[in-house]
């Protein structure tokens, strides 16, 4: 089904589908159409043979009827000429996840192997273009096999008088319910661990502030600050921890975490040929984790047919206070984890893309329009190493 979204702006009192009172001024009369008139579109170019290219090139069968699938979104200006936006969405998708199958190796395909997620959302925003202000609020719901989440947000922004700077503040609350799925050997009957199966809650509250500033057409800056408070069950129930005495437990972490990321972004557009994007972020939380992220991305157009875009991202974090590797946690602690994502490490991700699009085709082959090669090397001090290569070829 072809989906069309329609957004309507304006002060219109009513919105009607189809029929209204007949117009006596008209000299035209309603009449029943003939079959060929009903199907005028599909036979429109009939006499001229194949005109499929007009509709997108796939063929005339590509013309799908969009009856009852056009969506209308409404935006209206209120009496003060402020722009208001309402939108509602229902998203539906399907995903597969290979590693969640390791929770219970006996079942070939666990329920989460192909969950369907349903996530309706509703949002409202109102913009006063004259004053440069906007505010809005939203509600969302997301449900999965082992997880449901209700979210609410409120945001506001204000531009400076010359519209070059803008302050945005956004508050968000997520109320999550999680069902705890333990590793099979730690479920009822296999262990004396007090935390069995069942459900628990996890609530997140965040306040995000950002200041973006256009210095000039070529140079833009942004400062970002988030304050995040999480409350509730913050461990992952299927992460195993092995103690020095050989016993196995489920990861236990405090039920409260306060996180502060502080960031800075600068983009510079030096003409058409050179673009520089840089980003730095400092992060800390009350679990003892601090982290630095720095990244630089450039794109250099050497000629209209050849461009190079190198990038580098550096990341360093200290581990959380509760981390110890495999078989090194001593019994009797309140909290423990062996998740290496929470350990101390440094990572580097660097690489480059090159793009060739010579006018006579790549390697002199006319139809071989462009070749794009991207390579990235990711290395993490605690084990993980990976190389990512992607090739894009365009054939015409």
């Amino acid at each position: 089904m072809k989906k069309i979204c329609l957004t309507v702006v304006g002060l219109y009192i009513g919105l009607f589908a189809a029929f209204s009172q007949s117009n006596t001024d008209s000299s035209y009369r309603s009449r029943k159409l003939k079959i060929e008139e009903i199907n005028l579109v599909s036979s429109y170019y009939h006499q001229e043979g194949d005109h499929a290219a007009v509709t997108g090139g796939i063929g005339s069968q590509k013309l799908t009827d969009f009856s009852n699938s056009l969506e209308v979104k409404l935006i209206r200006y209120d009496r003060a000429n402020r722009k208001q936006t309402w939108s509602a969405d229902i998203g539906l998708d399907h995903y597969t996840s290979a590693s969640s199958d390791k929770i219970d190796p006996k079942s070939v395909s666990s329920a989460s192997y192909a969950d369907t997620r349903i996530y309706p959302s509703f949002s409202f925003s109102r913009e006063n273009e004259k004053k440069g202000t906007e505010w809005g609020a939203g509600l969302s719901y997301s449900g999965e096999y082992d997880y449901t989440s209700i979210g609410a947000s409120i945001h506001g922004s204000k531009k400076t008088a010359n519209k070059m700077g803008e302050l945005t503040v956004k508050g968000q609350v997520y109320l999550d319910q999680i069902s705890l799925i333990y590793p099979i050997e730690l479920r009822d009957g296999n262990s004396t661990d007090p935390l069995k199966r069942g459900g628990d809650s996890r609530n997140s509250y965040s306040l995000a502030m950002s200041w973006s500033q256009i210095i000039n057409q070529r140079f833009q800056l942004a400062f970002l600050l988030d304050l995040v408070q999480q409350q509730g069950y913050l461990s992952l129930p299927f992460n195993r921890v092995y103690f020095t005495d050989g016993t196995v437990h489920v990861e236990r972490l405090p039920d409260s975490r306060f996180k502060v990321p502080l960031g800075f972004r600068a983009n510079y557009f030096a003409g058409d040929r050179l673009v520089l994007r840089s980003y730095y972020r400092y992060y800390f939380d009350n679990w003892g984790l601090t982290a630095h992220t720095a990244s630089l991305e450039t794109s250099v157009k050497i000629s209209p047919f050849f461009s190079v875009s190198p990038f580098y991202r550096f990341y360093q974090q200290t581990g959380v206070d509760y981390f110890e590797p495999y078989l090194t946690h001593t019994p009797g602690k309140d909290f423990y984890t062996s998740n290496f994502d929470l350990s101390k490490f440094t990572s580097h991700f660097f690489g480059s893309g090159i793009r060739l699009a010579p006018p006579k085709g790549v390697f002199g082959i006319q139809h071989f329009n462009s070749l794009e090669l991207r390579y990235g090397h990711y290395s993490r001090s605690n084990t993980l190493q990976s190389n990512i290569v992607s090739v894009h070829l365009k054939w015409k």
Partner: protein
Amino acid sequence: MNNKTTLPQEGNTLVKRALKLMGNRFEISIQESDSERAEELIQLAVDEIRRIEALLTTYHPESETNRINEMAGLAPVEVSTEFIALIQRAQRIAALTQGAFDLSYGSIDKRFWNFDAGMKSLPDPILAKKAVQLINYQNIEIDPLNKTVFLKEKGMRIGFGGIGKGYAADRAKEVLVKQGVKSGIVNAAGDLTAWGKQENGEPWTIGIADPRAASHLFSYINITDMSVATSGNYEKFVEIGGKRYSHTIDPRTGMPVSGIKSVTIISPYAELSDALATPVMVMGKAVGLDLLNQMKQVAALIIDENNQLHTTKNIQVI
């Protein structure tokens, strides 16, 4: 932690060119990362539009349109296959709209009709009717075998003002699609056709002008592989006795039409969207919507004189 290993992507590759063609502002936008190739492609589209302009114009005495008009009431004129096919499609729309769309609209008596804002009263219905007596699509005779077109009445004239821009947009798109352009928009002064998707995978967003002020948008629509045309009385209208009359003349009565401020048609072809927008204004919202609701693959938005929005049934409000 923010440690995603995704590769950065290339920048925007949308290339645009705006220029005056067929007496209107055309804008051609295509998704093509090689800027020189993009210019070549756009030039091909421009050449195609110029070719159609030469075919349809009434400014050059040698155009096929003018040769037909000169021989009105005298003899059939041989024309190209492309021209015959365009007239045949136009005739189907004329029959569909009970003559509200009519290629011979240009036969109106210009001495009678001098539409301007100073008009204080409606014309005499008998005189108005007389001024449009030569408008009748049924008097356009097509002989597909001999490839001739004959206007049966002397003084009759045909013109492509109501369909030509849309046709040009469709043809320009066709040229680009055949050259391998996967995504773009040809905008013929508001009659536009869009295909493919934007670089970010989103459909194209098309703004529709507010009938209260053409420079403002009243709505926008996300489409792909679809064409949109809007007809409205934004600027050219008069108010007589508190009622707003458009510069559009009903070819049946010769009277200016009222009741609708703007009509937007969405269909797979720019030509069809273009050709249907004005006749719906002429037919009025009730008859127009009844017609469009019966048709497949056509959607419409109508704003009436009270600023109320009416849509075909295939458009839904959420």
